[in-house]
Each structure stands twice: as structure tokens, then as C-alpha cells.
């Protein structure tokens, strides 16, 4: 089956300017060779700590940023090269739900306008038809028809996120990026939103790229998981396999650092020391070696490639060569 989205060797460096004349001094290497494919009805979870480049990957596949190198294909069509009508045709299939529903909704727009805008921009519906489809969409995300005639400030955080989801899904996209959609929400509300997002996928077969720093949320939502560290994927596998046998020392460190709500099991262990290095001055060799409890001589010199260690389970680590 042809993948809905296929990203290959994506690279994005952001130039850093400094001084009065904005002299270009260096690059922040946000994404440095990321590949993945995503099929219909499937969720790929992208997990990593702040600054690892996971949001940038999301923006690259949505064509909100253009990659310095690499390709993004939507059903076999190259996205970055598209212009005009062809781009618009594809854009309605690539949608996004942002982290903060407070700042991603226009406070002066009625919900009807916010959720209906994608239909009008893409010329999918007009007039009364827009209102009808907005109300159907609101019902689908668990809001009611009269909510269409209210402003964002009249809603709670969880309801606002439902509006954000309605806006993303109203054009009937095939691919949706969720960028930390529940990080600003309390746990009781987070559960409602996560259930809704899963449920919508079961009904409509959307392909999801689900970005989060929270490993337990990622596990709950994803069929497959890619762990990112400093701009690259260090390990990727089916969710069950990754948790049954995490291969990369960074994945293991993430898992043991996670505090489990069970006082009987000792977790939240500080396996790795120090902080994530700056993505401007990357460590030589393996990017994780300065913090890795299992680093050896070769790790300081050469960067390991992401290779298949077991069927469908790939890791970028010299331990498995």
C-alpha cells in the first residue's frame, strides 16, 4: 500500500545572525536527516525533549517550512515543489492541531468563522452549506450546534482544543499533525481529548503524526514510535516492540526517567547526567555520547547510522553493529 506521507532525509538548518550588521555566524541544526513513512489509519508518535527538532519535522511535512534537503511526498507527489492550485489541493489534506488552543484561535472570530474558514479558503463550500458542515463537525468533536455562535473566550481549554480539532478536520484531510495537543491541559481534560482524537481516527482512517514530549501519552496514542534526539531519529519501532525491548541507551534513559504513578515501583531514575547539548555545537561522533552511560571509544569518533536491528525495529547506536 502506498504511504500517505513519506519523508526522506529531511534536513533543516536555521542560520544564526549576530551583531549590529546581522552577520551570519552559525547554524542551528534543527533537523539533520529524518525519514519516515506513514500509512492510512496509522499514528506515528514523535517523542523527544525540548529542542530535539520534533516540531520542526512537523512543520516540514506540512510544508509550513521548506527543507534545505530531502523530500516530502504526499501519495507519491512531491510537496515542496508545488505552487498555486496544486498546492492548495494538497494543503487541504495536510492539517495541524497546535499545542495552545488559546493562541491558535482568533479571539475576535466566531467559532463558526474559525471552523468554516478552511472550507471557504479551499472553496469546498459556500453560504448555508458552510454553516451546516460546521455544525456537523462541532457535533462530531463533542460540541453542540449553538457553540458555533460563540467566541473562543467563552470556552474552557479542553473545549477550545476541540474547536482546534474541528478546524483541522473539516476539510476531510488524510494527514493530521498533532503538535503537543494536550500539553496545556489538565489530566482529566487531556483524557477526553486523547479519547476523541483516537476515536476520530477509527471512524475516518486519518494518518496522524503525533508529537509529544510525554512518553506515556505517545505510547497510548501511537502504533509506531520514533524517538528523536538533537535533530535525528535514534530509534524507531512498533509501540509494543519499543516498550518490550528499548534498544538505544537514550530511549532507555527516557523510560527510566519517567515517573510512574506507583510508589511500589522505583522509577524516575537519573540514568543520564547533564543537559541536552546545544544544537549549534553538536558533539562529534554519536550525538548522545557525552551523556551515554555505555559510550565507548568509537562513539566519540563516528556517528552511528539508523539500522535495522530486528525486524521493523531500527536504532542508531554502535552497540548493535
Amino acid at each position, binding site marked *: 500500500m502506498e504511504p500517505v506521507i513519506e519523508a526522506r532525509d529531511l534536513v533543516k538548518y536555521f542560520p544564526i545572525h549576530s551583531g549590529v550588521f546581522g552577520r551570519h555566524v552559525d547554524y542551528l541544526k534543527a533537523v539533520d536527516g529524518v525519514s519516515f513513512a506513514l500509512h492510512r489509519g496509522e499514528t506515528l508518535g514523535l517523542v523527544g525533549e525540548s529542542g530535539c527538532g520534533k516540531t520542526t519535522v512537523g512543520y516540514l511535512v506540512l510544508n509550513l517550512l521548506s527543507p534545505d534537503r530531502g523530500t516530502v511526498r504526499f501519495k507519491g507527489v512531491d510537496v515542496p515543489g508545488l505552487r498555486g492550485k496544486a498546492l492548495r489541493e494538497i494543503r487541504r489534506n495536510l492539517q495541524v492541531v497546535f499545542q495552545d488552543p488559546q493562541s491558535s484561535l482568533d479571539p475576535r472570530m466566531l467559532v463558526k468563522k474559525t471552523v468554516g474558514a478552511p472550507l471557504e479558503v479551499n472553496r469546498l463550500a459556500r453560504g448555508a452549506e458552510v454553516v451546516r458542515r460546521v455544525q456537523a463537525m462541532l457535533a462530531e468533536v463533542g460540541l453542540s450546534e449553538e457553540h458555533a455562535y460563540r467566541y473562543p473566550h467563552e470556552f*474552557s481549554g479542553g473545549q477550545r482544543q476541540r474547536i482546534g480539532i474541528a478546524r483541522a478536520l473539516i476539510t476531510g484531510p488524510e494527514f493530521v499533525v498533532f503538535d503537543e495537543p494536550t500539553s496545556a491541559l489538565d489530566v482529566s481534560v487531556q*483524557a477526553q481529548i486523547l479519547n476523541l482524537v*483516537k476515536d476520530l481516527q477509527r471512524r475516518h482512517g486519518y494518518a496522524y503524526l503525533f508529537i509529544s514530549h510525554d512518553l506515556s501519552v505517545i505510547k497510548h496514542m501511537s502504533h509506531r514510535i520514533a524517538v528523536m534526539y538533537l535533530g535525528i531519529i535514534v530509534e524507531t519501532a512498533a509501540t509494543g516492540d519499543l516498550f518490550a525491548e528499548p534498544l538505544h541507551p537514550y530511549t532507555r534513559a527516557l523510560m527510566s*526517567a*519517567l*515517573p*510512574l*504513578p506507583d510508589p*511500589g515501583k522505583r522509577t*524516575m531514575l537519573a540514568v543520564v547526567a547533564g543537559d541536552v547539548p546545544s544544537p549549534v555545537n553538536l558533539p562529534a561522533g554519536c550525538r548522545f555520547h557525552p551523556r551515554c552511560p555505555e559510550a565507548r571509544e568509537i562513539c566519540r569518533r563516528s556517528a552511528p547510522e539508523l539500522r535495522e536491528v530486528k525486524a521493523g525495529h531500527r536504532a542508531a547506536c554502535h552497540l548493535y553493529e
Partner: protein
Amino acid sequence: MSELLLEIRNLAVQFFTYQGTVRALEGVSLRVGRGEILGLVGETGCGKSVLARSVLRLIADPPGRITDGEILFKGRDLLKLSRREMRRIRGNEISMIFQEPMSSLNPVFTVGNQMQEVVALHQAVGRDEARRICVDMLRQVKMPDPDQVLAKYPHELSGGMRQRVMIAMELSCRPDLLLADEPTTALDVTVQAQVLSILEGITRRQGVAVLFISHDLGVIAQLCDRVAVMYAGGIVETAPAAAIFAGPRHPYTQGLLQAIPRIDDGKEALMVIPGTVPSLIDPPRGCRFHPRCGHRFQPCDREPPPFYEPSPGHRVACHLHAGEDQRRSWNRS
């Protein structure tokens, strides 16, 4: 519980706003023993930060005011102290660390400058002695190269290092109680694990009691001896950590624990607490949780529940745990 250090009795805090009077805390009672780590857990707006700030009398007036109750620290009511006496308590006997260390550190002074000022002010020692104490404290929070860190400005440190500086600074005066308000919420998990293991190590060594505020049930479970759960301005359940996670008694606590995704189980759908947190300007009558509760019955929308003690040390404010006689009287009415 060990010897009693802090006892809050029937505390009420209100904020007087244009929209109306926000009843942020009502009838809150809580005890912290010496050297104990007590976790205070609850969702946004439940009043957990207001509670911690009340202990240090840091509620801004206006708009806020402590309208009722007592805060007994080593037997003295902090609410009756003069401002001067209160200033001697802050920092010396009770310290506090916040979520965002950057807003607690002054960006234009070096770390050493700020730390030494604190030490010199509270302990009446000379410059050299103050510096020696600072270096020693930074070592205790496992800061590599303390002398260099003292010469740095806060912006030159990472988030985890800044929070370690705060811990070192706040514990340098050997307080008896540390109030920690979501100290690792802004940090990544691997750094959070480092900072919390340091915090736990140093407070246990020094015998400092900690009131640890967090919305993260995982962190609370891993760190705390006892747990108090807050909802809409009141405490609904307190118990030893092992008891509350193994057998939560309040429907809200039960709901919270089932609503979080965990890596050690494989459930398909999460349990959901229906509805949202109520407004504290016009909170629900009776039990404040009753509109969202699946177990509500006759008394819940009329009478605020008292604390029942279903097992020793496990207290829960819920009518479900009322005795037989009480239940019969509700059934008759």
C-alpha cells in the same frame, strides 16, 4: 507521622475581584511532620499554590485575603505574627522554590553574588565564610565546578542548573520546611529525574520537611511519603502515598488515576471525568465535586462532606464513607 511541624487549621482565602468574590480556599486543614515529604496534587486552579503562599503570607492584598483559620508552625500561629517576625521566618525557617527559576533569580547579578547575599543576610557571617558555605551547598546539589558557577550569570546556566542553584540557595540557611511549587514542571524528564533525586537526597539528609506541589501524579508517587489531593479549593483526600495509589477512596482521586495514560498498562481508552472544574466564584453547594461525580446520592448536593477515616491515616471527604446510622437518616429524609 513524625513530630508535628506545620498544622493548617480550617484555612480560608478569598480574592475580591470585579467579577465577584473568589473562594479560593475553604476549610483547608493539613499537617506536615518534621522531615516528611508531603505531596499536594491537584489540577490548575484548585488552590494548591495559594495554599503554599498562604503559609509564607505571600498572598497579595488586595485582591486576596486570608479570611479564616490558623497556620501553626512549631506551635506558633503565623497569621498572628508581626511583619517583622514574619520576615525572620521566611528564608530562615521556611523557604520556597518556584516553577520558573529564572523569575526568582536576578539576571544582572552573578549566582555567587545572589547566593552570598542570602547567606550573609540570614546567618550573619563574613564574606569568606559565606562563599565557603555557597561552594559547599553547590557541591551538595552535585553542581560540577562550584567556583565557576558562582561567577556565572543566571542566563548562562541551563534550566536544570538554575533550579539546582535555587535549591542550594534556599537550603543554605537550613530551614525546617521547604515549599516547592511545581519545581520541575518546566524541565525535561531526564533533567527532572536529576533535580528531584538531588532534592530528595539533600532534604532527607538535612531533615527538611517538604510541601511538594505538583499536578503530576507520577512525580508525587515517586517522591512523597504522604499525599493530599485538592479539588476546587479544598482537600478531598489525604493518605500515605502507598495507600492512596493502591486504593484511592475519593471518586475524584479515583477518576484522576484512571485518566492518566501509563506506560505500564495497555488500556485502549482512558477513563474520563465528565465536565470541567467549577468556578470558585459560585462553587456548587454541598460537595464541590458532586456535579461531576458518578456516585452522588441524597446528601451530596446539600451537605459539604466531613472527613471520614476509613483506615488509619487515610482521610477522605466523601459521603460514601459515612457510617450506617448516618446513611439511614439520609434514606429517611
